[in-house]
């Protein structure tokens, strides 16, 4: 009987296991799942017949009582569970429900409240558009968090006249308006709504000038290597990009909030260098992207401002994405100078990707009051690979004995230089690809870039991390992080527990 019972159980398990493995109810599963329970029922009947355990009246009474109790309990549990299928009580702790407005949005709300004009902003939310349901909760969050925001839910046909021009030209779910002035919110997420509010708060138009004429990346280029995403990001935060042809340059426009020098490939004319030097000496600002293999006379100007640009590409296996064959020049940067305004909100979790970057060392202050230094760094395992071509082509590279520095290498640096009552500012990225169309939306690249832009435009108040979307982060883990977790917890913890167990065993035997 015992064997038959075991065989029945084994057959059921084999039948179920075969189904789970092959994902189909094969003949093997059907036979096992039919014969197995049959054997168990047969054994149960035989055992019940042979059962002589409760001979006395007392024992039978106890058995009967407990059989009744057990049956009642099982029936009650089944009844409650059956009824419970229709009860909708739940507590939702999903990321969508635990959504809180970003720090940047709260800051914008404060700014609206502190604005001396006292004019409130309106969020016109059109409930007859197809994204209305998704955005309803978000609009309510704005309304409850910001005293100076009125959320108006209305039909497209009920839109006020000042909103009509935008409604006629675009498909709109949300519009941000203030003083009868409206700003378009693209896809209605927190980032875009907050940026529209920031644009409404701007007192005057800000212009950023892109320099052309030395092989720089094109702003209008929409290919993966182009900078059209960068131009769109600037417009989204209220900065209008304009072009400036370098060789025809006579002066930098006075309305330039800052210049963008997107990896010039060819030498500059001496006159151009002189104009740029004069602009910076007069308190100008510039955002500079470099490339590892390009060494032109423009780099000399950066050296005048205290930077050194050693040849080679930064390689660092420790901060490569964790894959079988880590690419040492694809750097997932997670170390920032948190004392600098640009990176004060960045941390180990807000990683940026700098693929194939050169080092930007800050070696000396041109004037005693100047402040220069790195703001984003490699790990201390990095080295500057002198064979740039091999590294960029993905061929295996190893650090030469002299190449290992044992220190964090700055990949992005910033400098501020008080001059003639003004303050010149420079931000230098060692990599142009960082801001290209294919890399800019990666991880927190946009955040770092926009923070740099805001610092250059003296708009420090809006420096932060962009408002999050509802999606959990899509950040990878670096090799260094994972190995740290693995050795600390996956090995150490079980090891300690096992040692305690062995100790308990010996003590018991003793």
């Amino acid at each position: 009987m015992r064997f038959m019972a075991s065989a029945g159980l084994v057959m059921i398990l084999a039948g179920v296991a075969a189904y789970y493995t092959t994902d189909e109810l094969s003949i093997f599963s059907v036979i096992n799942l039919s014969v197995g329970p049959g054997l168990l029922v047969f054994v149960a009947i035989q055992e019940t017949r042979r059962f002589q355990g409760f001979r006395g009246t007392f024992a039978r009474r106890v058995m009967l009582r407990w059989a009744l109790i057990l049956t009642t309990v099982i029936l009650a549990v089944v009844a409650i569970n059956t009824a419970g299928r229709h009860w909708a009580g739940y507590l939702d702790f999903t990321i969508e429900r635990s959504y809180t407005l970003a720090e940047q949005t709260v800051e914008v709300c404060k700014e609206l409240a502190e604005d001396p004009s006292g004019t409130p902003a309106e969020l016109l939310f059109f409930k007859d558009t197809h994204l209305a349901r998704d955005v309803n909760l978000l609009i309510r969050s704005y309304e409850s968090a910001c005293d100076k925001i009125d959320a108006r839910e209305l039909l497209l046909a009920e839109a006020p006249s000042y909103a009509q021009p935008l409604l006629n030209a675009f498909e709109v779910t949300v519009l941000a308006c203030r003083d009868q002035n409206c700003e378009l919110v693209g896809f209605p997420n927190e980032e875009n709504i907050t940026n529209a509010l920031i644009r409404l708060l701007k007192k005057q138009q800000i212009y950023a000038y892109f320099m052309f004429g030395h092989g720089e990346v094109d702003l209008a280029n929409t290919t993966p290597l182009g900078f059209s995403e960068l131009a769109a990001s600037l417009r989204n935060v209220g900065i209008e990009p304009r072009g400036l042809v370098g060789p025809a340059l006579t002066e930098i426009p006075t309305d330039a909030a800052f210049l963008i020098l997107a990896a010039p490939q060819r030498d500059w004319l001496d006159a151009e260098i002189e104009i740029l030097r004069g602009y910076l000496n007069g308190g100008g600002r510039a955002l500079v992207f470099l490339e590892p293999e390009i060494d032109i006379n423009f780099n000399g100007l950066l050296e005048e401002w205290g930077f050194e640009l050693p040849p080679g590409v930064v390689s660092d296996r420790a901060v490569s994405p964790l894959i079988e064959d880590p690419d040492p020049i694809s750097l997932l940067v997670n170390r920032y100078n948190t004392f600098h305004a640009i990176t004060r909100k960045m941390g180990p979790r807000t990683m940026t990707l700098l693929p194939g970057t050169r080092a930007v060392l800050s070696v000396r202050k041109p004037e005693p009051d100047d402040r220069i230094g790195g703001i984003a760094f490699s790990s201390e395992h990095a080295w500057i690979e002198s064979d740039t071509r091999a590294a960029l082509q993905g061929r295996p590279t190893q650090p030469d004995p002299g190449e290992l520095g044992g220190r964090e290498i700055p990949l992005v640096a910033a400098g501020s230089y008080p001059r003639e009552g003004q303050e010149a500012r420079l931000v230098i990225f060692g990599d142009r690809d960082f801001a290209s169309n294919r890399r800019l939306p990666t991880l927190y690249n946009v955040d770092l870039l926009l923070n740099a832009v805001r610092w250059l435009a003296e708009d420090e108040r809006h420096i932060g991390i962009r408002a999050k979307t509802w999606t959990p982060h899509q950040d990878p883990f670096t090799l260094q992080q994972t190995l740290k977790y693995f050795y600390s917890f996956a090995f150490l913890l079980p090891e300690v527990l096992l040692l305690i167990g062995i100790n308990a065993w010996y003590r018991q035997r003793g």
Partner: protein
Amino acid sequence: MIHRLAALFVKELRTLFASPIAYIVLTSFVSLSGVYFFQHILAYNRLLFVIQSEAVSSRSFDAGTIPIHVNALNDLFIPLSNDFSLFLLAVVPLITMRVFAEERAQGTDELLLTTPLRSWEVVLAKYATTFFFVLLILAASAIYPTIVVNQSGLGIAHLLTLYFGLFAYGTAIAAIGLACSSLTQSQIVAAILAYAIPFIFLDFSWLEPALSENVAGFMRTLALQTRFEGFARGVIELRNLLYFGGAVVIGFTVSLSALELSRAR
């Protein structure tokens, strides 16, 4: 009564930790969790890498090309949570198998039955000890999902929801195991039953082809894994709590009946 229960609880706990089995089970659970945690991180990174490499034919993480459903919740946290639930299924019967069966095999249950202790107090103490051990196992392995939560921005409430679900799931499995242990004096039989019953109840999808839509739907609601999935997603549903609570109540009643019948015999 509280003193008696506390004394019984401490006695059961001492018995449990006097043998190396508790440590072996703890170590196994933590090791399995650690290894799978590492494997999931590798798989998650590889997934991100493959998606992005395919999109732009590049050897690094690129942009905006990751579909919205590929994220740390779907591809790291939920698979890890499901693994945890299966590991519970694997290790909890190792603890429950001995609780009643060992006493019966060694004859020490006779002593217990002749004391003035009530049966429900004895059973309650054994259940409480086992549930405490389940909690201990989960606490020891909490570091892995905590790392994921920290990395993915899911929030502490989501992590606590998962652990609440794992605890409910673990207590249901433990209750089934303890009920099996109370019905036999063989630890092996108790263990086989404690593995078999939750395994059969794990997922009834194998029965669905043979059932009508309504019945299949009902069977789906009986599956352990279906009931657990909500917790991993961050939702505590009343009906799932009723399900796991029901399993504990039935298990407790079975153990109590078995003890009362032993007394009667």
